[in-house]
């Protein structure tokens, strides 16, 4: 009978190392390390999510500088609340929830302030839904890239006119490609509600984007 002297001889050492490696680099582990004062771990978390969060807030607010500011505020809140973080949800759900709340709060602030924007001149004063501007030019464009750019701008503006309760689930689903289950957890609502809102949001967009479809 042979006697095993090292753990490598068992044959599953590489798998074990990989598990350990994955565990130390998971979002939860990084936040645990942040909690104990590891700034590098927090920097790693920021590196993973900064683009996603900035992009998501930008799609929600249609304002890049404001989106960067809110994305930073999101990370500040994550950092401050690291002690209170519970592992019952995925970290991505947690951080997206914070970002969503901040974005919706910003949208409501703007509504109160009634910021004058380029599209604001054409918005109805009776509080009704804003109308999509920039109807497409019927003339053919030479450059396909220009066409794509124009189409993307139009859809971004059209998303910006959606009510916030439809906007967030649509972006999370169609832009970020998240599952209904995760969206429901981020928005703290039921899956059925999420599906219904996404369907209605697409209906609105289809009407606004009819010229491009």
């Amino acid at each position: 009978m042979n006697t095993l002297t090292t753990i490598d001889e068992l044959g599953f050492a590489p798998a074990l190392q990989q598990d350990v490696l994955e565990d130390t680099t998971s979002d939860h582990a990084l936040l645990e390390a942040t909690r104990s004062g590891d700034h590098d771990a927090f920097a790693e978390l920021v590196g993973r999510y900064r683009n996603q969060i900035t992009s998501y807030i930008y799609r929600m607010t249609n304002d890049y500088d404001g989106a960067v500011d809110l994305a930073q505020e999101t990370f500040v809140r994550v950092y401050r609340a690291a002690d209170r973080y519970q592992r019952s949800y995925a970290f991505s759900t947690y951080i997206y929830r914070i970002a969503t709340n901040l974005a919706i709060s910003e949208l409501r602030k703007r509504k109160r302030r009634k910021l004058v924007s380029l599209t604001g001149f054409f918005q109805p004063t009776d509080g009704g839904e804003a109308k999509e501007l920039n109807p497409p030019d019927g003339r053919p464009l030479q450059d396909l890239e220009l066409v794509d750019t124009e189409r993307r701008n139009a859809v971004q503006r059209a998303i910006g006119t959606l009510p916030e309760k439809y906007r967030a689930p649509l972006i999370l689903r169609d832009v970020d490609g998240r599952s209904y289950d995760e969206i429901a957890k981020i928005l703290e609502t039921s899956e059925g509600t999420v599906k219904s809102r996404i369907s209605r949001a697409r209906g609105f967009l289809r009407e606004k984007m009819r010229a491009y479809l």
Partner: protein
Amino acid sequence: MRKNNCEVVRRELDELMIGEAWSTAATEHLRGCASCREFHEQQTKLRQIVGSLGTIEAPADFDFRLRARLAQSNGSPVYWTFARRGLAVAAMVIVFATGALVVRNVLNQPTGVDQVARQPEVPQPAKPEEPKPLLKGENKQAPAVAGIVDDAPPVVRKNRRLPAEYRKPLTSVDFSSERAELINGAGGVSRAFPIDASLQAIRVSLDDGRGNAKTISVPTISFGSQRIVQSGNQFAPKRDW
């Protein structure tokens, strides 16, 4: 039936991700339904356009700015948490105190429709004064005592709100421990005082503060010598004893 099928198929197509396989029932329906095919094509195109928005990159100095922001706000959250809590507690105390005052004032307001007019001021316990002789013919005012009014009937005001000074709660004044006023003075002062004052009935009106007034009549008090003088000698000076 067909419309129901269209709704079911459209919902199914709507919930699937782009490129995900749909059911055979949906496939068969799409084969025969032109409007659903058109809907599906438009929906797919729309979702492709929305999906093509992609991810926007954060600025290059994002980390630097975030670090500066964290350093700037370091320590302040605890301070602000306590400051906010303190402010909230202070606000609550103020609100409760104001509420209690309002409730107290409301409860102290008289509820009766008819209010009997009372003396506006509640007298303080009278200090014993120096004996003051009463001169003959001097019209001495009776000391103002709460609830004691003259023979005139009490003035009744209907549906009128009394001013604040009248709405003070009633207080009772106990004079039992004080000396009665001495009328019989000394030192070259006339000892005369109106004897016929006792022939008048004393009426005391009491108001309980809720519009109920009671009047107590004290019968005439006379002294034996007074009776003798008045009945025996009709010519005797009437007012002097």
